[in-house]
């Protein structure tokens, strides 16, 4: 009787413990857990290694007199050249070059159009990201004497064979001779190691040998799906100057062609405003020798801030703003010249600020005449202004005008202000930059979510993350296949999706839910419930042990 009563008590304690463990704990766990949707973590980790392969199609056309007909038949149809470069440890970039022989066009083309440069013909149409290199004999009169390589406005180049490569040489020798030179052309027209390093500047540690390209990349705006371009006319002295600028016409004539050309890279919107009574942040110094006011290069850094407060941000979008200011100095401080570091005069009277915009000083004291009667009506010469702004715009957008190697002749860019291959170059580096940025964003988001267990991951965030990952994978694949246009498109989508996921406000809701407060709420319930269960379990265990010992 006594024993069975004890036994019943033990059984009751055990069953209560079992109910608490089987029903209570899972119920508590399920009702208090935060919702966390599934994320493709393994794919993100895969992407974080950033193994990029860039490949560019290069079509090589041999002109008559460079190879014999027999050799021509033997030229391999495709040839792959790989070049592997490691950038900063684990990032590996593979340059992959495809050489494709073209047998149909070469003889006809050069016999008919000897006087024309290749871009004038419809033959030179080639898809975005690819190149056509025409190999011409050493004796050809198509290029001036000292020029070995001519780079056209489109995606074409003329390459003159070196003097040591006479007709008698074998095909292998010829190809071996051409290979480094084609690579050189590719570096000018598509991408080079430095460009890619600059595009990856966020991820790469600064090293002295790529200083130049880093400086270039720091000047240019970060890659973004859209830019707002704002032209502001600053008139600090409306009492003396009544300024008229035909900004609408000037934008149509000078800026719009370039932006239309750049439209695959980003969307641009242009607006302009006139601001009155805006002063520069520094007082210009009067230079008696020139009877003019001067602004030193050192003080230019202080010019922008007070003006910036008046510029106003764009209310309608969150894209980065490129500011171009035309400053007309007031009548008392006129003329005003900008002085370079070595006290020399800056011919354009303008300067730019990296990742911000440009400022040009436009002196109008030439309009006063002998007996000025204020206010003076002044029509601003927009051709002069827009020339400066266009050059600054190219710099700020990252259209690099690096000096070509010796022996290269680069065609003057036409009416659009941008050659096709320059656009390609920009698209290559932008694609790589977008891929790198989106990868960084997604990786850090995944890390953050992994570290902080309190964050709720809603389905829409998971969806954004997966679509970003898919776009990234597609972009990487397209880069590998050499489809530059698609690669850029996918990389832009990846950026948009990853930023949307990263900045989603729903991530913040339960972020600050400290553990000590949670325990303060749980303890009044859990402590009185768990202590008797634990004690009786301990008692049962110790009794069982005693019985075993007996």
């Amino acid at each position, binding site marked *: 009787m006594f024993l069975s009563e004890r036994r019943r008590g*033990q059984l009751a304690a055990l069953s209560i413990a079992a109910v608490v463990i089987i029903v209570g704990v899972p119920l508590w766990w399920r009702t208090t857990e935060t919702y966390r949707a599934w994320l493709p973590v393994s794919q993100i980790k895969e992407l974080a290694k950033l193994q990029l392969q860039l490949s560019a199609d290069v079509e090589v056309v041999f002109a008559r007199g460079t190879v014999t007909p027999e050799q021509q038949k033997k030229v391999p149809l495709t040839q792959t050249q790989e070049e592997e470069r490691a950038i900063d440890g684990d990032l590996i970039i593979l340059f992959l070059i495809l050489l494709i022989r073209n047998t149909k066009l070469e003889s006809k083309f050069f016999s008919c159009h000897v006087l024309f440069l290749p871009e004038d013909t419809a033959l030179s149409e080639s898809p975005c990201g690819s190149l056509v290199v025409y190999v011409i004999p050493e004796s050809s009169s198509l290029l001036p004497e000292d020029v070995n390589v001519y780079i056209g406005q489109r995606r074409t180049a003329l390459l003159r064979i070196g003097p040591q490569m006479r007709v008698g040489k074998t095909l292998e020798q010829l190809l071996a001779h051409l290979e480094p030179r084609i690579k050189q052309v590719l570096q000018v027209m598509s991408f080079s190691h430095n460009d890619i390093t600059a595009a990856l500047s966020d991820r790469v540690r600064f090293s002295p040998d790529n200083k130049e390209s880093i400086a270039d990349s720091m000047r240019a705006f970060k890659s973004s799906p859209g830019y707002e371009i704002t032209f502001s006319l600053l008139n600090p002295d409306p009492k003396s100057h009544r300024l008229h600028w035909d900004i609408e016409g000037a934008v149509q004539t000078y800026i719009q062609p370039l932006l239309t050309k750049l439209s695959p890279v980003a969307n641009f919107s242009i607006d302009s405003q006139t601001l009155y009574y805006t002063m520069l942040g520094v007082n210009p110094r009067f230079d008696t020798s020139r009877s003019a006011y001067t602004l030193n290069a050192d003080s230019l850094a202080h010019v922008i801030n007070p003006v910036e407060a008046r510029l106003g941000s764009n*209310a309608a979008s969150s894209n980065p703003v490129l500011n171009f200011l035309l400053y007309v100095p007031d009548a008392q401080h006129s003329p005003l010249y900008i002085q370079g570091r070595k006290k020399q005069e800056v011919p354009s009277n303008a300067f730019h600020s990296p990742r911000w915009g440009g400022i040009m000083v436009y002196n109008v004291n030439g309009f006063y005449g002998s007996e000025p009667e204020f206010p003076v009506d002044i*029509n601003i010469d927009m051709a*002069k202004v827009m020339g400066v702004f266009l050059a600054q715009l190219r710099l700020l957008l990252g259209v690099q005008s690096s000096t070509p190697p010796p022996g290269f002749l680069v065609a003057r860019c036409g009416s659009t202000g941008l050659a096709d291959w320059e656009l390609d170059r920009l698209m290559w580096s932008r694609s790589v930059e977008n891929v790198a940025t989106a990868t960084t964003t997604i990786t850090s988001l995944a890390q953050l979510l992994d570290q902080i267990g309190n964050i709720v991951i809603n389905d829409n965030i998971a969806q954004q993350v997966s679509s970003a990952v898919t776009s990234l994978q597609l972009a990487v694949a397209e880069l590998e296949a050499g489809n530059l246009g698609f690669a850029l498109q996918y990389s832009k989508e990846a950026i948009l999706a990853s930023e949307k996921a990263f900045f989603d406000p729903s991530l913040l809701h339960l972020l600050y839910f400290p553990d000590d407060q949670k325990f303060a709420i749980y303890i009044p319930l859990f402590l009185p419930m768990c202590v008797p269960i634990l004690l009786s379990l301990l008692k049962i265990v110790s009794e069982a042990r005693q019985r075993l010992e007996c």
Partner: protein
Amino acid sequence: HYAAAQKQAEPAVLQPTPQPKDDFQEELVVRPLHSGDIYASFQFRTLWETDFMRGNKVSHYRLFPKSLGQVISKFSVRELHISFTQGYWRTMQWGQPYLPSPPGAELWVWFQDSVTDVDATWKELTNVLSGIFCASLNFIDSTNTVQPSASFKPLGIGNVTDHRFLRYATLPREIVCTENLTPWKKLLPCGSKAGLAVLLKSEKLFHSSFHSQAVHIRPVCQDWQCKTTSWELRQTLNVVFDLHNSGQGKREWSLFKMFSRTLTEACPLASSSKIYIDITDNPEQFELSPATSLLSQAMVLGDRRTFSVYDLTQQDTFGSVRSLNLLIRWKSTEGDMLRPLLHAERYVAGYGLQTGEIHTLMYNHHPYRSFPVLLLDSVPWYLRLYIHTLTVTSKGKDNKPSYIHYQPSKDRVRPHLLEMLVQLPPNSVTEVTVQFERALLKWTEYTPDPNHGFYVGSSVISSLVPSTVAMDTNSTRERPLFSSFFPCKEESSYFVRVYTEPLLVNLPTPDFSMPYNVICLTCTVVAVGYGSLYNLLTRSFQIEEPSPGLAKRIANVIRKMRGVPPL
């Protein structure tokens, strides 16, 4: 840089300079009030002949501020009215303001009919505006936005009257200060560097009884036949100074005393820059110096007023000292003001924290004319209106509204909207009462300072009020007899909007440590119940010998000492 390396700009080519399509005007009206205060009203108007409608991309700005232009074109706004007010306009002491506004922030917007999702656009617009004006307009959401059916009609051209495209919201708790004035001044073409805007010094403007600044954007006709339309941006700033009470004791005011600035020039971009002083009561009550010969008469709010005009674009206005410091000196403190014909007030009645009653009183001071008024009330959802208790009485009799539009609230979604057209009998008080119940909020819905109370926005009363000129029976004396038999219709009524006081209502406010206390208490009760149950289930029970009583034990001790066997 491949720019032309020219040092000097070439001499001007004689081109005809294009006529600018925009125009800027500035104006200051000063009205000495009978209470001894002084009322200054600034208006800055930018007109721009352009077309924001029909999807035209407008991107080149001259006088019109770029930020507002971008807002209009991005959100397809037809009309935008926003005001920030600190203090309450005392209609009975000060008369009618030129531009009425309720305390706090008020925003009402008419969207173009091309907008498909008006609510989403409205939400985005309030967020952008809160950035532009540094105000908490982002707190405008569906719980304080209404769509009035009759009270707010478009003030510009356009015949859209479908109130689906109208949104109206007020934030009665909004506090207006320097950080709202600075972005407002930045919208002016001359900033605060020249023209009348140099007077707008925040340390003086906010040291006043009433301060209100507003921005109104609307499309207007450019010419008589309305062939071309243009956009009007009107920035207004109204301020009432209480200089008499602030120490001097003398009734003598000047621009310098009011604004601690004098005027030296007009804004060079303004086509007109004028100061008007309301001298209708001159010379009986006050004198002005320097005196001006320029006088102007205008019908303002149903009254014929006379103004002295100072034209700042004329150099001789500034005199030999090249600075204008207007001086107004009061001669006597007597004189009575014409009572405003329409006036309203509002209060909460009742006791306790469960129910209450909102009383709205509307006064018609016209001696013999009755006129209809539109009353708009927007009450938050946490005051649950009992609409069956709505009564409208005037002169002790039931006054049946001819039009009632009522939209009930939804908890946490939208407020009550009540609009009524009521006829106010002459010389009467009309009282509108409605009872309400206070809701208990969720504990996260209380404001950081819940014991302060919750604000209910002002009622809006819009009306066409008979003109005081028409009321003036003596006017027949000055006019030829043949012109004065029938009352002149054009001047017979004018539009007035009156805002009542906002209400401050106390809601039942819990002790905010309550949730934790409740959790602790519940847990303790559960734990006690559980503990006893657990004990009952797991303890094994045995019958125990009852222990001997106290007396018996003492007896046993004594017996032991004596050596006798225990009991």
